[in-house]
């Protein structure tokens, strides 16, 4: 309100970060993506190559295209996860006892590191000794190579679906907690009023519950899409993009190109290409969700 210099003093850390890690990184990264630079030569030695890196990504790099496809298949775990999460939240919302215990249980996979979870699932998926195969055998079914390239659907290797299954398990808890919070923030009077005006349970659900939890759904859907397109640790730990490159995803591939192949310029180009794709998806998603309500899945 007064003493106009005060806010700027408080903003010093923000401005330092803005200058070094936001504007500079962005500008430098974009410039780098137009060069053939590798990190062990000086920047002066790099040649400006124009759009070559970007063109290469789409014409000479089949693995990148495959990785893009895989990322978009992988994201499909999310509607499943949100639906199951919402279902559990509805159940927990009616439960009177033990809600906080369930909440803790649901939250544990969320705070456990993906690296640790991957180890456990790696064992679960083990061909010879893994519990999944033992259960299949006990039911008289043939055991599966869970992390192999065998296709369950055309173009979808079983390893990818196994990774998705692990992610569903890991993130359900977070969805449950967010939805539970949303459900509990609905004032009881709304439901009472609807009941008094003669609405049955189903229409109360449709006309009171759904509209009021829609922001939470919107939030989950958007953050989860952007987040899961960037999947890294799950794939890196379970399959390293293999066997071959059938489960490769963009961020793992970018890391491999940059660190193992020393192609920083090309890696940066991959990063920005993928970023623009994610941005486009998020914008479309916000529009669809705004317009169509929640049942667009």
């Amino acid at each position: 309100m007064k003493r106009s210099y005060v806010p700027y003093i408080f903003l010093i850390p923000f401005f330092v970060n803005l200058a070094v890690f936001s504007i500079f990184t962005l500008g430098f990264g974009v410039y780098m993506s137009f060069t053939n630079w590798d990190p062990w030569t000086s920047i002066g030695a790099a040649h400006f190559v124009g759009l070559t890196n970007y063109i290469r990504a789409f014409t000479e790099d089949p693995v990148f295209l495959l990785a893009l496809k895989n990322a978009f298949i992988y994201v499909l775990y999310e509607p499943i996860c949100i639906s199951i999460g919402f279902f559990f939240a509805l159940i927990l919302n009616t439960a009177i006892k033990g809600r906080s215990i369930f909440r803790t249980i649901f939250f544990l996979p969320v705070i456990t590191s993906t690296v640790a979870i991957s180890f456990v699932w790696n064992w679960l998926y083990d061909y010879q000794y893994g519990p999944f195969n033992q259960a299949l055998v006990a039911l008289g079914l043939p055991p599966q190579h869970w992390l192999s390239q065998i296709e369950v659907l055309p173009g979808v290797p079983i390893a990818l679906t196994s990774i998705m299954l692990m992610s569903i398990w890991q993130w359900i808890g977070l969805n449950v907690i967010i939805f539970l919070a949303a459900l509990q923030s609905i004032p009881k009077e709304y439901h009472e009023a609807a009941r008094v005006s003669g609405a049955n349970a189903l229409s109360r659900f449709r006309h009171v519950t759904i509209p009021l939890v829609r922001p939470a759904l919107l939030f989950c859907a958007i953050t989860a899409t952007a987040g899961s397109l960037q999947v890294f640790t799950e794939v890196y730990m379970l399959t390293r993009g293999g066997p071959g490159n059938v489960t490769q995803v963009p961020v793992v591939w970018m890391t491999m190109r940059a660190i193992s192949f020393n192609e920083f310029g090309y890696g940066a180009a991959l990063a920005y290409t993928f970023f623009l794709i994610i941005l486009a998806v998020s914008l479309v998603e916000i529009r669809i969700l705004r317009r169509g309500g929640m049942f667009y899945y």
Partner: protein
Amino acid sequence: MFISSIKDQTELFTRPLKWWPSNPHWENFISAWDLPQPPLLRALLNSALVYSSSTLLLLLASSFTGYVLAKYEFKGRHGIFLWIVSQMMIPGFTGLIPTFMIMKWLGWINTYWALIIPGAFSSYSIFLMRQYIITIPDDIIDAARLSGCSEFGLFWRIVLPLSKPALAAVGLINFVWGWNDLIGPMWYIQYTPMKTVQQSLGSLFDIRSTVTSLPGVAACLTIVTVPLIVLTIITQKYLIQGWTGLTYAKR
């Protein structure tokens, strides 16, 4: 995971599956410490140092920024807020390569700084702090200002204590995220003794098939996860409040 950690090697590979081992091997927990590279204790100390300091810096920086965005009128406020919101849309991986180069020029590769400093800024945290601080009534701040409190004193004595729930939530979420992060350390830390817990666990992946001491691996996982579980149980209220805040901030 826990049950596997107290089995012995052969028992883990029996069919049918056993839920509880016939005689628990607690000593797996002792041998586990030396199994990964770097040894687990060193990795735990690395991670604890890195992520607690980056979380403290983060809380300071984001409450500073959140405070002025919430409570001051000044030139550029709207622009800064828009910038922060748009930054939330930019995924972290786009900055990995240029940040790596900055770290290299600063000589920060293989130092703790490479993880602490980038970890100390997060648009989400600033956003959350702003959303929370905006709910603190102006009257309280004005009253303190009239009784002669300095501008920094206002922040330190009034705003900060009142935003404890938000600080706790933001701090916890960032600490847990950092602790569980693999991609950052993978890029910036290649010198083994400096590696973090997640890299240390990751190293087990490579020896898994050769040493075949899966119970030891499971023991390591348990050791790393238990602190987080305890933390969650103690601070559940704040963690969940934080996530709810995150949800409604978007409305």
